[in-house]
């Protein structure tokens, strides 16, 4: 079977459906007498339409009970989904309560560890300082000028 010109396939389909604009129809009318391929393709398209109209039944009508059946099926499905969520509901409640309890316990523990259980930082006090200085000799006073530095060097070398 000869092929239709690719350029005219959509136009031929429109022509077959009777929905063509006048300019396209005019173009096709000028083309068809000169093109055996397009003529043959158009004939085949008409034949296919005959075959389909003559022999293919439209889909069956849904019938009056169809909508009722669908709504009932939707209700059943909703019920199933609800039952599934109800089945797990006690566990969800328990889990949420456990989570709340755990969170509260953690909070209490955190506050306690911050405020009470933390080891106290030793604060340097005056009495402590005096206790320390009693155990150890006082360091030598630092020289304040060059003469004192030289003097302290001389003393230390003499001491050796």
């Amino acid at each position, binding site marked *: 079977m000869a092929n239709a010109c690719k350029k005219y396939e959509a136009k031929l389909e429109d022509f*077959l459906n009777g929905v063509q604009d006048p300019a396209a129809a005019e173009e096709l009318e000028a083309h068809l007498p000169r093109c055996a391929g397009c003529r043959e393709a158009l004939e085949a*398209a008409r034949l296919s339409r*005959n*075959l*389909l109209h003559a022999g*293919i039944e*439209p*889909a069956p009508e849904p019938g009056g009970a169809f909508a009722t059946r669908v*709504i009932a099926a939707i209700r059943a499905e909703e019920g199933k989904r609800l039952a599934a969520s109800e089945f797990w509901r006690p566990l969800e409640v328990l889990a949420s309560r456990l989570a709340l309890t755990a969170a509260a316990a953690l909070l209490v523990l955190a506050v306690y560890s911050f405020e009470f259980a933390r080891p106290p930082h030793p604060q340097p006090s005056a009495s402590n300082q005096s206790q320390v200085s009693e155990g150890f000799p006082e360091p030598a006073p630092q020289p304040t000028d060059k003469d004192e530095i030289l003097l302290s060097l001389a003393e230390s070398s003499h001491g050796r």
Partner: protein
Amino acid sequence: MADVPKTETQSRRRAEAPAADRRATAEEEQQLVRRAQRGDSAAYEELLRTHQQRVFAVVGGILRRREDIEDVAQQVFIKAYFSLRRFDLRSAFGTWLYKIAVNECWDYLRKKRVRRLVYEADLGEEQIRQLESIADRPGGALRLPEDAGRRAEQRDLLERLLGELDEQDRLMLIMKEVEGFSVEEIGEVLELNVNTVKVRLFRARRRLVEIYRKRLKARPSAKPHSR
């Protein structure tokens, strides 16, 4: 060039019961969708009743068996109900629904692993003779035989021919010629450009006739077919 007869421009479904008459206007439909999204089941039931025939048409275009059509159509409406909150109203509700229907059909076929029916050379002499009598008559005014048994047999033969087409091409042909969808609607449902739909439809017609003629030629005593 002869004009296309009026009857040729109409599908069988449109000729029998215009779907547009049964459909609510776009605005009314949007109101219904919004109500259904808020949990109004009566609104959803109204949407269901408005679109059930066309969902059957789309599903029937792919599956063809009544039992399968009912099961899958029911599944489509259940799925749509539970997905309704995600529908953003950017397209028409029908388009959204028919897309669900098409996807549900492909899923169904995948799950059932139904293989395409291909009948290479299993038509008998009588069946081929019946094929010859169905079509190929000028004027397009074709009638199936009066006898119900023969009529059913001829329909079965044509279903077989259609079974040899690509699934999407078959769906397009049935939606267009049998169920009364427009080219634009087919494009929306199958997410194809309108021009692509026209070209594919035109080629699918040609392919169907090729298969038909091949069957006639397979007959040993067949006369050459001029059309």
